[in-house]
């Protein structure tokens, strides 16, 4: 099987977000960047499919020179090949999708794994965007998957339950937590990954469809009324919920 995994480079989820001097992006100082956690599920699922059926696992990211670090992580996990579409910081999802689609047309994979969302911009659109651009099916938020006989059967999380979706290959799967437990790279593999080649590509330029004007830290004013645990305290809280917040 010819398997492709698309990964993005994101700040560690515990990062404290501070708006940078441009007022539109975060201040990268002191931030540790990691492989988007949902994309690790994609790498793991790709590796398992390969272990079962044979084939190759390729990992691609659209980013800048800084993105080599996450590709090294992917190599250490055991993927065969990594591709970096190296340009300026991506302008919007259309730019990323167009560049991914270009490579996909060249590689012609049987299955493409993405994460359900990239935990930086939480754009929540790449799987459907790519599916539509390439005119192939995509199934999002998948927590269970079987690939057999030219089709994928995927369990997808929806409000209040699950949908079972059947899709013909080639198809796009976006991974949700629960799909698998990604492996940790072992130290010797981390060392070996340092000298493996990275296939670098020039991006095509794409006219942006949206742009970020400003970024801010939301400051919803909370009441912060904290009481003890006596009967009177609890009465007070119930009264506040009823009369002040009007939620009961």
């Amino acid at each position: 099987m010819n398997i492709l995994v698309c990964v993005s480079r994101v700040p560690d989820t515990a990062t404290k977000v501070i708006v940078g001097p441009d007022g539109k992006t975060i201040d990268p100082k002191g931030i540790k960047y990691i492989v988007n956690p949902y994309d690790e599920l994609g790498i793991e699922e790709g590796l398992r499919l390969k272990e079962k059926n044979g084939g190759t696992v390729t990992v691609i990211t659209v980013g800048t020179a800084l993105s080599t670090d996450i590709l090294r992580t992917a190599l250490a996990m055991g993927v065969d090949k990594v591709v970096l579409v190296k340009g300026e910081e991506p302008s919007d999802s259309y730019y990323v999708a167009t560049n991914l689609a270009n490579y996909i047309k060249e590689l012609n994979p049987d299955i493409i794994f993405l994460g359900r969302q990239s935990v930086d911009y939480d754009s929540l659109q790449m799987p459907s965007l790519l599916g539509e651009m390439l005119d192939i099916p995509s199934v999002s938020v998948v927590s269970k998957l079987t690939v057999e006989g030219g089709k994928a059967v995927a369990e997808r999380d929806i409000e209040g339950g699950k949908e079972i979706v059947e899709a013909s290959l080639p198809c796009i799967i976006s991974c949700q937590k629960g799909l698998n437990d990604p492996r940790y790279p072992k130290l010797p593999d981390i060392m070996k990954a340092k000298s493996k080649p990275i296939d670098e590509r020039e991006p095509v330029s794409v006219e942006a469809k949206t742009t970020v004007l400003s970024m801010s830290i939301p400051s919803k004013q909370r009441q912060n009324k904290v009481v003890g645990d006596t009967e009177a305290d609890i009465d007070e809280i119930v009264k506040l919920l009823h009369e002040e917040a009007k939620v009961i």
Partner: protein
Amino acid sequence: MKKILAYLEPQKETLKRTSLEVISAARDLAGKLGIPFSGVLINGTPEQAAIAAEYGLAELTIVNHDQLSKYSYTAYAKCIEQVAKAEGADCIIFSANATGLDLAPRMSVKLGAGYVGDCVGIDVQDADLLVKKPVYAGKAQVSVKFYSDSKVLSLRPNVFTATKSDSPATLNIKQFTPELSDSDFKALVVSVAKNEGKLDVLEADVIVSGGRGIKGAENYNLIENLAGAFAGGAVGASRAVVDSGWRPHSEQVGQTGKTVSPSLYVACGISGAVQHLAGMSTSKVILAINKDKDAPIFKLADYGIVGDLFNVLPVLTDKIKKVTGR
């Protein structure tokens, strides 16, 4: 912008609550821009249309086709595209629920439109649309402008309020039969498994979540009882609880669980790690119960009770039941 199209979804005999939010937001935006708006409903009934009218919808296209009894995102997207073109709509609004998040980006490609997902605010400035969306799991928010003429949005559920219109509209219904072919059904929903009898956190108006402080699956009845004291209450959990195997992942709230925005979120024995806050920080009202007065969750809470949840929850549940009469 010329015309707004609101994507509506049926739910049993009525419309999904998120669809009423979408109509209300479309109505407000159309009003501000002085342009018309209409709705599209696949496999809908006149009864559902009548509900849409109460929220001010005056034009609705109902799509029917034999093959649409089978559910396929690709085919649905094709239908909405055909309706949008027939209507001359250049702005389509979805809910950012499971269906909307899947369909909306497809529509943006079909219409050559820009797309912003999971919006929490829509503003108009100089006849131009400005939308707000959370980024970095809600730790920050961005204000986004479109360059494209056509626009597609999805709205985070439970953030925009569904309000009936002061002047309910006389509804003009158009029936529409789309052109579909077999190749539009490359991905097909073959079955749906609903968590029967249990309300999902994504659909709940009140969520009561337990954390590691609950100490074991056997104590979760305390959480369930409090959730049961509210109409529309559901049970949630922190990752610590899910990882311990006390509750299923479908109940996890947070960065790698669900993002919720209920009217009331009650956090019981949850410390308030950033990854948990990521999933619930836009809740309208937050109540925290924790025995540690310095727990970070209190900084984000509207109301807090410092105490042992094993003592507090039964008393709180009784007192709330007296108010709700449940």
